[in-house]
């Protein structure tokens, strides 16, 4: 970022002699103050969630509120995750965590495969109804779940799939796949088509060219898309709320919704569940930030 900001208008930034020092000082004081406020506003709620998850109930229910708890306990984390003899709630929470993992991973795999295939066709091939089909996929992506949930509830019931992870995997794939198509189509169009033409001259089929040439070149795009797909599936609530009823398929958002009813005022327990449920996406976002941001901007800035 050697070019500096688009709004960098102080003389120094423009490479001109420094003349208006006081103004420049006031300006950077203002900017740094803004940055500190932004940092505090972003971090404070997180901090409070973390504190609540380890503070003893006495501290959480104290008045006036003690910001730094006097007693710290990790019992709730142990109870919910690794403790032997888990109670019903812990049992439910653990299976919800596993269900979320299984569902989000399966959705990511399924929609990445079918989505990338379709994206390749949309980016490279000419066929009748192409523009219309793209529009149809995007249209389904925009549909509100509430418009589909009633018939899906009945259909899944008729198929005997209600309260199974499979139902959620299929449903989530139906809105993650259009998203994959959207991002990957854009990504594949940036790869010169001479490359897969060359592969085909060398005897590759279309599929071979996709797998041997496009997929390796599009690996960063695929990673971005996969991470976002995983997060989308991890986050979904409404379908899961309606289609799951037991530990067999309840996901973390539903388990947390149940927590509210069960634990009433035990916010320490709620916070602990929340922290654990937030860990995978937060860790992913932090470690793979570059890819996440690339995926997000590919979906909206370039699109």
């Amino acid at each position, binding site marked *: *970022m050697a070019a500096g*900001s*688009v*709004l960098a*208008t102080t003389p120094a*930034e423009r490479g001109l002699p420094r003349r208006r020092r006081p103004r420049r000082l006031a300006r950077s004081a203002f*900017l740094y103050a*803004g*940055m500190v406020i*932004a940092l505090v506003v*972003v*971090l404070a*709620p*997180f901090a*409070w969630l973390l504190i609540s998850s380890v503070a003893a109930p006495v501290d*959480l229910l104290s008045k*006036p509120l003690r910001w730094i708890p006097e007693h710290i306990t990790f019992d709730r984390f142990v109870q919910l995750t690794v403790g032997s003899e888990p109670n019903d709630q812990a049992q439910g929470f653990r299976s919800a965590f596993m269900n979320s993992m299984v569902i989000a991973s399966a959705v990511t795999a399924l929609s990445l495969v079918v989505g990338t295939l*379709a994206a390749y*066709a949309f980016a490279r*091939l000419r066929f009748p109804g192409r523009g219309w*089909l793209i529009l149809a996929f995007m249209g*389904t992506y*925009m*549909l509100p*779940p*509430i*418009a589909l*949930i*009633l*018939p899906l509830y*009945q*259909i899944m019931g008729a198929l005997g799939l209600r309260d199974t992870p499979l139902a959620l995997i*299929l*449903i989530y794939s139906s809105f993650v796949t259009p998203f994959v198509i959207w991002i990957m189509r854009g990504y594949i169009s940036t790869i010169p088509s001479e490359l897969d033409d060359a592969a*085909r001259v060398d*005897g590759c089929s*279309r599929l071979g060219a996709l797998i041997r040439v496009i997929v390796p070149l599009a690996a960063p795009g695929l990673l971005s898309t996969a991470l976002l797909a995983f*997060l989308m599936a*991890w*986050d979904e*609530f*409404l379908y899961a709320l309606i289609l799951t009823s037991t530990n067999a398929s309840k996901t*973390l*958002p539903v388990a947390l*919704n149940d*927590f*509210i009813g069960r634990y009433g*005022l035990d916010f320490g327990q709620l*916070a602990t569940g*929340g*922290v654990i*449920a*937030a860990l995978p*996406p937060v860790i992913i*976002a*932090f470690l793979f930030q570059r890819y*996440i941001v690339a995926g*997000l901007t590919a979906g909206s*800035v370039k*699109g």
Partner: protein
Amino acid sequence: MATSTVLARPPRGRSKRPWPETWVAAAFVAPAALVVLLIVIVPLGRALWMSLFHIVLTRPGVEPFIGLDNYIEQLTSSDFWASTGRALFFTVASTGLELSLGLGLALLMDQPLRFRWLLRSIIILPWALPTIVNALMWRWIDNAEYGSLNALLTQTGIIHEYQPWLSNSDTAMWMIIIADVWKLTPLCAILLLAGLQSVNREVVEVAQVDGAGPVSLFRHIILPLIMPVVLVVLVLRTMEAFKVFDIIWIMTHGGPANSTQTIAIYAYQTAYQGFDFGRGAALGYLIALVIMVLAAVYLRLLGRTGR
């Protein structure tokens, strides 16, 4: 092309000529179309069908065809319009705040400041927090008796008595908006920052040489240049916000006194608490219709400024 394929690979008995492009395309698109068709198009058709019948789960077997009555009933009901109004209010307030704060944040992160990397690397965290966890967290922060918001505001002397933020119908919606804004402003900021970074520096420098100050530079050069990104963010946020469900369901369940009952909450309650699937399906269609209209309006807007 076909001949070179044959040259490169000895024929193996199967067809030597590659498939026509349309067939290949059909084969490539088919799996995705299958997933989407089965899960979206079939239910969409069925929902349309359901919305034309009087289907109440408490009276199984009696499902008379009633034509457009479910739609007419909704369009003439005050509950429908009130909840649509709340959804619009939520949409305008949250999207407006997220976009303006996000733009401010993006401009800030674009400045050559020390520790800018710190803000840039943690800004993604609220966005990554699952919606349900975010809702739970703010429910706890806004708690009437033990919430940290009350503690903070009384300890700093801004208010003198604890307030039941989420069970007061004047404040509940704003609390939800704050929670939503906290989580999604970073997303807007990230997208807008990418837009700012794609602005051609030369254009900016020319304007500066011509004596444009920061404000006029922003208004007349930067803003028009990033307008397409602003519009895309606006479209995405508006459509998401209008169908809001999760955060409200966790924070207030649509209460108190229906003051946070948006259209999606209303549809859910009609279908799953009133057991009226026919009306629920009609409501779903009406919501989808509004979202499609929004999408169309914005796509036109986008087409106009896009080039």
